[in-house]
């Protein structure tokens, strides 16, 4: 119940202020609280899942879920760095996406994240400043590790 209370407070904070900084903190708190709550829910369900489903299938599904979640996190991180860059050299402007609607920007960010994670890297969306390069380095290290782990999980499940 305190978690629900925190959620409601953060929503009120988010709606009740015009200050962008406070709003961003509220969003961050809300995401953190929701994450804890989702993990708590999963923990409650785990005995039932373990009893009714094969362990390999559960591992496979949760690993895919984790891969998609990390893709989303990387996409948001890359977009935020691009959109908050003060200079005009950012990947959004380079790809002519700076005036596109949010769904287009989100899909392209997600596309970049997954092509980088699975080591395809078409090269059509590339970092344009040093901040974006830093994000790309982190995403490449973490993303390829996660993808390698996923391949290992699939191999173990099939065998």
């Amino acid at each position, binding site marked *: *119940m305190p978690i629900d209370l925190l959620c409601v407070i953060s929503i009120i904070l988010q709606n009740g202020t015009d200050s962008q900084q406070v709003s961003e903190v509220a969003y961050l708190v809300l995401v953190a609280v929701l994450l804890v709550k989702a993990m708590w829910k999963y923990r409650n369900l785990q005995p*039932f899942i373990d009893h009714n489903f094969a362990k390999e299938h559960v591992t496979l599904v949760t690993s895919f879920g984790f891969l998609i979640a990390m893709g989303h996190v990387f996409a948001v991180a890359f977009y935020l760095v691009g959109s908050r860059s003060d200079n005009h050299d950012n990947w959004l402007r380079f790809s002519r996406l700076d005036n596109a609607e949010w769904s287009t920007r989100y899909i392209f960010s997600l596309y970049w994240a997954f092509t980088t994670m699975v080591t395809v890297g078409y090269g059509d969306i590339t970092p344009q400043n040093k901040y974006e390069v830093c994000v790309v380095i982190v995403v490449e290290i973490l993303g390829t590790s996660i993808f390698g782990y996923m391949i290992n999980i699939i191999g173990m499940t099939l065998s």
Partner: protein
Amino acid sequence: MKLSKLYFLIELSLLLINVLMIWFVSVQSAFNVEEGFSALPSVWQTVAVLDIFITLNTARVLEGREIKNRWRIFKMYLGG
């Protein structure tokens, strides 16, 4: 720990709604979405109320004897 199928489905739905909420909130905050997500607080409040109701409806047994639980306390509060 044994869970009924109905309880499992409700808990699973709540978990999925939670995950969707995380997605909604992160996309809305990062991509400055103005339209489409206006129902977000009301959806979350409904889910929170449902979640609290389910959490209250728990029975615990201590050494074979039912102890006073939150649901019973809630009923006493309502005068039942």
